[in-house]
């Protein structure tokens, strides 16, 4: 029997990773996370990126037909990982609970409305490094908290 939690889904956003095409973790933030990975953060980012990199090549080989968007999401018994990648290799990864449906437009907004506007267009933000801009961090945090499927209660 697949492990299937029948309790009412508590809509929530767990955490978010932002990577560039070289695997640099540009940004990480979390909102409701009950379990840590048990390894240092830098190792966690490498493990996450390595997993995503492998999934990309895994799905491109496994796919029976030519793909367009490719890998979209995966889920386990307790959470769902949503994935969005741009032609420049910027990767937006958001973990939510199982009840959250496709959120491609949300991830696209994080890329175009927040990362491009407040990091790429900030002359003082060098590319390929962890983002230092506080404006980007605060706007991202505010945006995530404003999402309909973000619920503080689950904290």
């Amino acid at each position, binding site marked *: 029997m697949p492990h299937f939690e029948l309790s009412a889904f508590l809509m929530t956003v767990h955490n978010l990773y932002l990577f560039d095409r070289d695997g640099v973790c540009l940004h990480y933030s979390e909102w409701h996370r009950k379990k840590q990975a048990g390894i240092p953060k830098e190792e966690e980012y490498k493990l996450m990126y390595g997993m995503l990199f492998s999934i990309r090549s895994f799905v491109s080989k496994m796919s029976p037909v030519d793909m367009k968007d490719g890998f979209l999401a995966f889920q386990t018994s307790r959470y769902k990982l949503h994935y969005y990648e741009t032609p420049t290799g910027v990767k937006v990864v958001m973990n939510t609970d199982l009840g959250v449906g496709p959120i491609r437009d949300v991830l696209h907004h994080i890329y175009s*409305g927040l990362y491009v*506007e*407040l990091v790429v*267009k*900030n*002359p*003082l933000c060098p590319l390929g490094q962890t983002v230092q*801009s*506080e*404006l980007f961090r*605060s706007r991202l945090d505010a945006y995530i908290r404003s999402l309909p499927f973000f619920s503080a209660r689950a904290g």
Partner: protein
Amino acid sequence: MPAMADETLFQLLHTQVVAAAYGAGRGSGDEGLRAGLTVLEGMGFRVGQGLAERLPQGALAFREELDTIKFLCRDLWGAVFGKQTDNLRTNHQGTYILQDNNFPFLTQMAWGQQYLEEAPKFLAFTCGLLRGTLSSLGIESSVTASVTSLPACKFQVVIQKA
């Protein structure tokens, strides 16, 4: 509201203009900073002169100094930054303060104090632009900028009496 595409291209070019002003061995530390600001202001001045020459003749029918400054606040700012300045003050003795609470070269940087010490580099070109436009309109001036909390900043225009 993100800027128009061509405004974005201009902003990215402006970033390279700032980089050029501080490149080419202009010295480091304060001396380098001053030299860079002067070069930036100089480039802005040339662009300001060029812009003023392309004004439709009608716009030059100003007599009043104040009207010229208002022209800067509305039309020049509109053409260059896609918005108007938010405030204009004057002591009626040739000193004007143009305030922009959302200066486009700063809006992507911060909301508050972060990058405060770097901000002046992104204002010098505009100082020169204002001075250059005024000088083409026959008004000599000195223009300085100040920023205390991004993305707001002030440009002080002091008219040199003949």
